[in-house]
């Protein structure tokens, strides 16, 4: 069970890492126009 002493702090770090990814996605505006991105794939150019 000693591994938990490493894994729990690691999981805290992981949460902050994922938060960083979310920050990037939100501030790039990825959640602002969801429809157009979905239709882009249907275009044949």
């Amino acid at each position, binding site marked *: 069970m000693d591994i938990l002493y490493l894994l729990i*702090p690691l999981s805290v770090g992981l*949460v902050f890492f994922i938060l960083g990814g*979310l*920050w990037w996605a939100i501030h790039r505006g990825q*959640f602002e126009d969801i429809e*157009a991105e979905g239709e882009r794939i249907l275009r044949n150019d």
Partner: protein
Amino acid sequence: MTSLPGAVSPTLSVSSKEALVSVAQEPDSRMPAPAADDAERLRLLDDPQEWSAFSQPEKGQDGCWASSVVFEGMHCAACAITLEDALRQVPGVQSVQVSSASHRGRVVWSAGHTRPSTWMQAVRQAGYRALPANDAQAHERRRQEARRMVWRVAVAGLCMMQVMMYATPEYVSGPEDMADDMRSLLRWASWVLSLPVMLFSCKPFLASAWHDLRRRQISMDLPVALGMVVTFVVSTLGTFEPEGPFGAEVYFDSLTMFVFFLLTGRWLELRLRDRTAGALEAVLNRLPDSVRRRTASGDWERVSIRRLAVGDVIEVAAGEAFAGDGRILEGHTQVDEALLTGESRPLGRSVGEGVIAGSHNLAAPVVVRIEQVGAATRYAQIVALMESAATAKPAMAQMVDRLARPFLITVLIASLGAALWWWPSSPAHALMVAVAVLVVTCPCALSLATPAAMLATAGALARGGVLVRRLQALQSLAAVDTLVFDKTGTLTRDAFTLAAVHLREGMDEDQALQRAAALARHSLHPVSRALWAQARQRAELAGQDAMAALQAWQVQGLEERAGQGLQAQSMAAVPEGPAPDSPLAGAAPKPAGEGPWRLGSAAFCQAPARATAHLQVHLADARGWVASFELQEEVRPEAARVMRQLQDLGLQLQVLSGDAPAAVQQVAAAVGIEAARGGCVPQDKLDAVRALQARGHVVGMVGDGLNDGPVLAGADVSFALGQAVPLAQAKSDFVLIGGELGAVVDTVLRSRHTLRIVHQNLAWSLAYNAACIPLAVLGYLPAWAAGLGMALSSLLVVLNALRLSGAAPLGAGQAATPIQLTR
């Protein structure tokens, strides 16, 4: 900011010539004259001072600008992609993002390689129109706000999930299962993850509570913020000082979950509000973007409206809107000030009289000296008014707000009482009971109940082409039992059709119509426009020669006499083709006959009296009366169906019109309305509506917004069909932008549905608070359950309201406007 406007300007002055050349060539070679004028307007934007109004220097890229633009003509997600493709192909455009949801875009371009006019021209050629977003700052602010909110929700959500993981072992393990240091490690981890929630996600609540405290006010954020802080402090002490007076209990899971749910509710509310605001903005961009200004040397130059200053002299063509408040220096015209004064008839304006920004010049070009510009104009004030209407609180919400204050004080006292009561037995327990009371009683759900529902409906209606100008009106509309319709432009189309022609002996019908049309095409009067349209339609059917013959008519010495008609000194058919003064000019002009020619009322043209239910217009020459045209209004094709649907909804229908009683009866019968009255002046209509109200009816009025200002204001609820006169819209509660009568049915249905939802929401939140307060005070409700209950009840209310933003209850609105997926 890495690049200041001053720093880039040296490169600009060199390359701006190239940009001018490239733009100027295109219209000349390919486009007709109006497009050239359009290009001239676009070119105005090629000035750093102009483009900086809707652009900002792009950070990190020297000499690059990010422009916000609004696109006209977009209707689906595929349009966004087409636009992006078109813009990307322009050399110098660095990146493009077009949002199909907001019809806005952000174009990053390099000032060294291109100019706004160049890429706007590319948009033009793709079949759309790009307009500088003058409200870019407001829009940008809202977008930032929305992003920050999503980010807060994301932080709270992710941290909540992880904190819940750390809390699970404590819940599932027995008293002796877990080692003390493992337990404190889990608590420590929970504390670390609660920090961002507390310091960042909770900020709106804490800031608002602090703001209220400093102003010695009390709001619903106060108990929530208090609950958050107390929970966090108690849990922190529990983590780092388990031997302290507050015991070793921690509540990080309750805290984060509670914050997450609360934020989700706020976020949904924010989205609803933005959606409605976006729809409003699209309607508000009505001022011209450029004007013709007189220079010091007496020439005319086209400048952007923002360059306009008090004291400038500008020329306003017929059909244009005035750019500022001012006074006429030269010319005589008629103006439409319906938006600003409620006066719906065209008003005569001559030298020395005032005109106002946003009103339309209807008749003739005039020269105006500007006295007020920008925010000082009445137009700007009215726009501000419209915007505030969208954010105003409905009466039911106001009532809830009034109740909230005494309610909140009671809650604070109750939680303090509960804490004092439990303190002797256990201070930690006492605090958590107090927190539970604070949290569980938060009247969030109560205060969300009404606005959430009404905003959801307003947003749904806006997407269906109905603008809600006053949220309160949704409540009144649900109670309406009588709908009064105007006739002209409401039950009928604006256009007339030619019903009959009476002629002087020896006159041919086509000849008469052509001559009348030749006069009529110079007037903006609805009857004139109808005659011209009819003549064109006939000529189109007859073929190209007939069209050329019609176009060939020219008149001299034309004047328009208000209330009487048009008069021209002479009229002749000048053959189309080579210019009249060139040697190639073929046949000499053929005079039409002896002038002066007149087109107008019976008295003006000395026409014989003729009894008819239709509108008449007469033509006369030097020898007197030539012809009479009877014009018939065309009943809207959907009117009969819509009336039947409205009657099925239990509404009584009436027609009140200023037209001849016989014509009104005829139209009313055609659409299936029994109660009809004609010959009403606006005051009569208002009296009739007041009489209905006195008998206890709740009256809704549907008009075209042209002649109905006072009635629209006097009725409990009013609709305006926004097709004909966009600026008259301001008077009514609802504006049917698409000009479809069917939208009335949809709006009525939705308003009733909305009120049902509001009642459900209010009932639910009252019942919830009434049931939970005693439980919490008695200590039966732990803080986490209180948080969950409160957040769930808010969420329930918002989700219940969101049902309203779905598809139309009857599908009526959607049937009228099919959704196009491809262009």
